[in-house]
């Protein structure tokens, strides 16, 4: 799980061009949206694409992603369970 979290963090940093942030700066349990990293709806779409490209997970509706994208930990848990 630790390794998956690290990989996901790096993939998100690259995809969202989070230039000044390193994986260590992202708290596993901090909210990704609004507070914390301050991501928005477009970032959510980019993360959904990461799930599809890297882990073969398809999410049909952005609203389905909401609970998954709460924090790095919820995201990693979802990927762990659903990866293909």
């Amino acid at each position, binding site marked *: 799980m630790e390794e998956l979290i690290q990989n996901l963090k790096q993939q998100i940093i690259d995809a969202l061009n989070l230039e000044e942030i390193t994986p260590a700066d992202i708290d596993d349990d901090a909210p990704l949206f609004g507070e914390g990293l301050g991501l928005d709806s477009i970032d959510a779409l980019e993360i959904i*694409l990461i799930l599809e490209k890297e882990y073969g997970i398809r999410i049909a509706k952005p609203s389905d992603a909401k609970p998954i994208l709460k924090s790095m930990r919820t995201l990693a848990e979802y990927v762990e369970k659903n990866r293909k």
Partner: protein
Amino acid sequence: MSVVISGLGIVSAAGIGVGATIATMRAKRCTVSAVRHFATVHKVAAAEVEPDNDELARMLHLPEGSVVSRTAMLGMLAAREAVDDAALTDAELASAALVSATTVGGMDRTQTFFADFVCNPNSGRLRYVRGHDCADSTRRIAEHCGIGGFATTISTACSSSANAIMLGARMIEAGLADVVVAGGCDALCPFTLNGFRSLMILDEQPCRPFDRTRSGLNLGEGAAYVVMRREAERHYCYVSGMANANDAFHQTASSAEGNGAFEAMRRAVADAGLQPHDVDYVNVHGTGTPNNDASEAAAMMRLWHNEMPAFSSTKAFTGHTLAAAGAVEAVLSALSVSNGYLYPNLNFSEPIEDTQLVPQQDFAEGVRVDAVLSNSFGFGGNCTSLLFTARPCPRAEVTGARNLTCYVNGVEVYGEHLDAKQLIPDANMRRRMSRCVKMGVATGMACMAQMPAPPDAIVTATGLGCLADSEKFLRSVIVNAEQMINPTPFIQSTFNTVGGQIAIISANRCYNMTYVHRYESFETALADAMLKIAEGAEGVLLGAFDEMTETQVAIMRRMGVYRSGTEPGEGAVFFALGSRPCAATRASLRMDPHGELTAARTVACPRTYHTAQARTVADAIGSLVPGEPVRISLEKTSIVIQCARQ
């Protein structure tokens, strides 16, 4: 002085022409179905115009083998209907202005070119890419209909043609034109289909605007134009109120409170000297996305509280026709006023929980409709409301627009001295910006900092917009075969991205407009900026931007554009225009279309790149000598600048 609508033209999935369109609505026939005119891997529902390209070309009597974008063909068809309906004389047409709007322009044909070009940069037939830029559709519509006066193209995403109608009405009010044909056109093509799909806001079923279970929009395509003129005996309605406001919240999402929508509606009603309760029907933007409808409903509740007028979204008939949507709905609104129509909001069953708003669900006619408000909202927070009335409304007189002198109180040219980190402090905004957006926004913000007060209008001009983003997106659609497409380049390919981002950073809700009229983009943006000042604006932020890409240079070289001494170029230039001089004033500026003013020398604008006009003006201001006015020859007009200090 009142502006009337005396001619209507409309083409959409609901039908070709006013008669067919109303028949579809009367029958409550949903037009949304699977995509037929091009191949796509996606199972999405869309509202396409029935004839294919060959049939459209035949209807327009185009010469055999001519390559005209679908966008332009739809526009030609609708504009012709409007011009015929208004029964304009040849003389009226020859001096009439055309204000047209589009977001995709010739992208459908460009994609045909690009599919070959991505494999080999020496392949791809150039005829498919010549009509790429937005101004091409405007030029073809003008030629097809014989419209010979001022022409320009507006592109502010989904509010584009509402803004085109607004500019046309303002020009008539200010005495700058007697007759204006205004509207917009957009064809459905894989670029937009994949763009909206990458945003995950397309409904696979027919859209359900304002319904609790709504889950997205259906793309449409089409065109619509209105003929506007001063007082005419035979007319549909008056154009009595208009406003553009910026939501200043997010590039694609609308604020939960509907701030931009509320401001646009409130100001449009006030502009006509009316009260919200005077509005009988609202043609809402109502795309059917969860976000738009919630935001628009919230804004409506703020304006009308519990006394909501009849309202409906007509998107289930026409699909979301993007740049054409504002004009499509303006035509429907004009018919609502003249014929007492109220249109049904199809596919509605349960209201949105928070607002409980219930739209009009049946086609009604013979209703007394004195005032209709039409909403059109676009990416970049661009919100426009137009108010159409049965009777004229007293409006503030606009005088002196023709001979106006304005003051250049600040100039900023993009260069290494601009620190994007400081000018765009929000790292989360900065990280997403492409080079072109960053260049334009940083220059605009630096120029705004020179203004004594926040601007009353932000007007931008570009030839080809954020080209690298458009290319990146188109390439990914082709190379990835429509799968796993990143949404960010699509969002930034919108021409009003720079203006919208400046509004967000500076929290500026004012008028925000973008012109995309080839080498004339800047001069028509300048004309709008000066008209804003004539209307009472004290400060306008006016800018131009364009980027150069390898692909563009390769294509232009193959076209032979650079053979005539033209060189590729790019840049961003912004001006702080003011109604009055101040301590920082660099120059006074006047339009001089007929060469009546005296000047010590004349400077010509090279066509090195689309916004070279703006750079030439900036350079001329930099080298001004007191007592020696300089004339700058633009494409269709000229301006005279001279030293002027308070």
